[in-house]
């Protein structure tokens, strides 16, 4: 467990440092993820502790978003002020952003496979 935390917190910290130092548009954890991915690809294997603990950790990813939901309480007046329009906007935009890229990727993958086979 300690080893897993050292890997994950270490890469997050590295991500934060690089992101701040070079004023990059991406937050530390996302950069940390990309850096760890590159490290694993170079090392061509996953350390035992990560192999064991990461799937267990990620199976509870939902837990970590619950505190953010409490913010609805603090900003409910702000949200209520715009009412139904906001619900429509969020619902339509979320569905479109699921659908259009999903369909595009399906199309591109089919063409890609076709080309590889040809």
């Amino acid at each position, binding site marked *: 467990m300690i080893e897993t935390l050292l890997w994950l917190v270490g890469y997050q910290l590295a991500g934060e440092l690089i992101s701040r130092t070079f004023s990059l*548009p991406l937050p530390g*954890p996302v950069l940390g993820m990309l850096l760890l991915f590159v490290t694993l690809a170079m090392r061509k294997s*996953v350390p035992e502790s990560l192999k064991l603990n990461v799937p267990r950790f*990620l199976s509870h990813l*939902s837990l970590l978003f619950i505190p953010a*939901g409490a913010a609805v309480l603090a900003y409910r007046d702000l949200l209520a002020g715009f009412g139904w329009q906001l619900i429509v906007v969020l619902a339509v935009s979320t569905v479109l952003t699921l659908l259009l890229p999903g369909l595009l990727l399906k199309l591109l993958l089919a063409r890609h496979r076709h080309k590889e086979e040809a």
Partner: protein
Amino acid sequence: MNLDAAMVVIRTSPLTGVFVTLLAYKLAVLFNRRCKGHPLSNPVLIGVLLLLTWLLATGTGYRDYMKGGIMVQMLLGPATVALAVPLYGNLSRLKRAAGPLAMTIVFGGLVGIVSAVGVGWLLQLPQQVLLSLTTRAVTTPIAMSVSQGIGGIPELSAMFVILSGIFGAVIVKPLFGLLGLRDDMVLGIATGLSAHGIGTARVFQLSETAGAFAGLAMGLNGVVTAILVPLLAPLLH
């Protein structure tokens, strides 16, 4: 006995925040199993509703709750980093599809911004709300900093992110089932683009491959959006 003092501890101790969050999650997971994983019994949705019920019932304010809540939320950073591991497990699929994936993620970033602002504009929402909508599809820290940079309201942006993340997590499986989109990679990428981390948590339950690609799309969409929004925002002024 000093019941007033006890109530103060319950409302303001960080321990209460941690405990209540864990309990809300545990109950939400049990409920989700009971409903055989029905999309509407999504653990984030139910967990948040349980937590809000507790906060309202005990009269606990958001700030007091967050003294403990932040300790759970802090683990989001390491969890995001951890997404690199399942992603590496899909390295060969990732390499083979690199071109289509890159195109889809840039396209998805644009759709995320334009669809939210476009519909909001049609419904005549005020300008500051439109600016706060630009970052609807990306993970909270990126959304808040980008929104602030272009004159939006960061807290409002965070709310939009969370609400659409929950909505996306609930809707994705029925929607893709209806359309016969069954590829795990397609499911993951689309979910990561539209519903960021909350969607990622959802598709992880469906397949590890989908979760890994969702994490990738979430991260890269953050970059695309952080670059595009400041370029497009002047159009709204």
